[in-house]
């Protein structure tokens, strides 16, 4: 398994607040890696640094040998690293299928004149985008809602749509920020299955932030624990579960 993402010494400072302090993280091909830690530990901030939404104060982010620090967010996304948000960010007034078309923007025929003249090539590109969108709607079970406004979907469906929207960009790394938050147990199980399916059938590597310990322990290949911005421990679910420091600081309930 080759190394995809290698993060070392990642630090993010907001004024006097050290939100992330020398976090290291590795992600290999076809791996599910989780980042856990109490609220305010800096998990989302790590995601924001990795996806270019924040410029990290220091540290290195290397993706397939290429440095990503300082790169613009949309360029990082084009390299194949996409993420969902802790609070769902869909295009609420657009339909479900349109959300998936916007995400395929750069794979489409965006030539001004071929669109204006509605050329054969243009229609072909639009049709294949629709078909790809349909493929993902089927996967996440939203086909019947394809023409609904995204904002009118139930919460769990919106979560799944957000994942599908990431997937149609054909990413290599998918980063999910608390995807199970607010889901009922059945939906969480579906999510569990979906994530494994993404890894095994679609060849994406997944970086996951999650509080649902059952989910995390069940699907993660490795887990990183952060506490108040500092890396606390990492290892397989088994190792993390039995790590005395983790138990003391965070997982007391296990």
């Amino acid at each position: 398994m080759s190394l995809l993402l290698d993060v070392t010494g990642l630090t993010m400072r907001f004024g006097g607040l050290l939100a992330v302090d020398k976090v290291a993280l590795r992600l290999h091909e076809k791996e599910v890696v989780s980042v856990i830690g109490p609220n305010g530990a800096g998990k989302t901030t790590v995601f924001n640094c990795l996806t270019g939404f924040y410029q990290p104060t220091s540290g290195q982010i290397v993706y397939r040998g290429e440095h990503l620090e300082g790169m613009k967010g949309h360029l990082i996304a084009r390299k194949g690293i996409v993420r969902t948000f802790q609070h769902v960010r869909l295009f609420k007034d657009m339909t479900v299928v349109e959300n998936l078309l916007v995400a395929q923007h750069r794979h489409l025929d965006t030539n001004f004149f071929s669109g204006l003249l509605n050329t054969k090539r243009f229609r072909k590109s639009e049709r294949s985008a629709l078909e790809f969108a349909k493929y993902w709607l089927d996967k996440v079970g939203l086909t019947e809602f394809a023409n609904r406004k995204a904002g009118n979907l139930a919460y769990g469906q919106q979560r799944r749509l957000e994942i599908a929207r990431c997937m149609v960009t054909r990413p290599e790394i998918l980063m999910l920020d608390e995807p199970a938050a607010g889901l009922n147990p059945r939906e969480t199980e579906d999510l569990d299955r979906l994530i494994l399916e993404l890894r095994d059938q679609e060849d994406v590597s997944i970086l996951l932030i999650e509080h649902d310990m059952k989910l995390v322990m069940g699907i993660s290949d490795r887990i990183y624990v952060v506490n108040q911005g500092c890396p606390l421990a990492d290892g397989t679910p088994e190792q993390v579960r039995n790590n005395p420091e983790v138990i003391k600081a965070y997982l007391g309930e296990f």
Partner: protein
Amino acid sequence: MSKQVIVNALISAVTFLVLAGWLLGISMQAEPGGVQLVFAEPSHLHWLWGGMAAVFFGQLFFPSQVDKLRHVAQAKKQRFKLPAMDRKGSNLVACFVLAGAIIWPFMVSRGSVDLATLTLIYVMLGLGLNVVVGLAGLLDLGYVGFYAVGAYSYALLAAEGWGFWTCLPIAGAMAALFGFLLGFPVLRLRGDYLAIVTLGFGEIIRLLLNNLTELTGGPNGISGIAKPTLFGLEFNRKLKDGGFDTFHNFFDISYNSQYKVIFLYLMALLLVVLTIIVINRLLRMPIGRAWEALREDEIACRSLGLSPTVVKLSAFTIGAAFAGFAGSFFAARQGFISPESFTFIESAIILAIVVLGGMGSQIGVILAAIMMTVLPELAREFNEYRMLMFGLMMVFMMIWRPQGLLPMSRPHMQLKQEA
């Protein structure tokens, strides 16, 4: 008999009346004063009523097989549907409106046609600004600057002897270039900041026009701008030096100043129709979807690999190009331009048209443009209070109907239902 069938029959009958009415009910006769419309004789009208009744009862008792055909087609073709250029019904309505708009100037006074031409310029400007403000969500208060660039581009090129139809795309391209250059540094700003900077740019362009006296004539402007021609045919009474021919001479009819006015009107109509077609295509293109997505959530757009700057810049540039087209037509129609025509109040009026019409809504913008240009004419005696009424209207609109006259309804991309 279902209600649907009766409604269908009624619609068919009325459609028949409107269609056949043009052909049977009215005839055009050439008279010395121009073309006159004459109503047909009663005997013709009887045929009209008879035909209408036949269509109505025919539809009532033998409802069309169209629906069944449609079902068959649906069952066969279980693919995805791309949004059609227009929904069938509105397509028909659009054709009628267009036909009416083409015939109309031949029936009314010169002044009305002139006013209508002005209205069409504002329609074009409104539609163009609508791309920037309504579709892409960028508040641009300096739109008139691009209008000015278009107008001056045409005026200067025409002085070099270039024809209108050659200048038109160049003027559009010049305005687009300005839009691109100005947009580049400012589009990272948001909301109010963007509005203020664009306001500044609009003023800068006006001040430049005022002070580059050698090129633009300064406050005196440029006069004697060549009028557009119809394939080289001029609409003046006398041929200019080196001109090809005049319209009335070529067709061997007597000179009538009405021809020119109608020609300008029809040209403006053509430009507006082209604008509408282009914008309708844009709405169905990836860039149109990207505009809406960006308006809704810029952060999500970035996370999906869309470059906000490029998307915004495209809206800004395309909007500016439309202003350039409108500007060059304006210069051609007026024959005279000066910086006076491009003050901030113009930007405000165009923006008011967009807001009044309903941001993003094309029909709304068209209606609002008509309102904003025709109402002041109708209420001439209140001219002093014009701005006051204008302000009041905006305030009341914001209170009662903040979404505008006709809120936007965008053609939605649809995934075809599996039957």
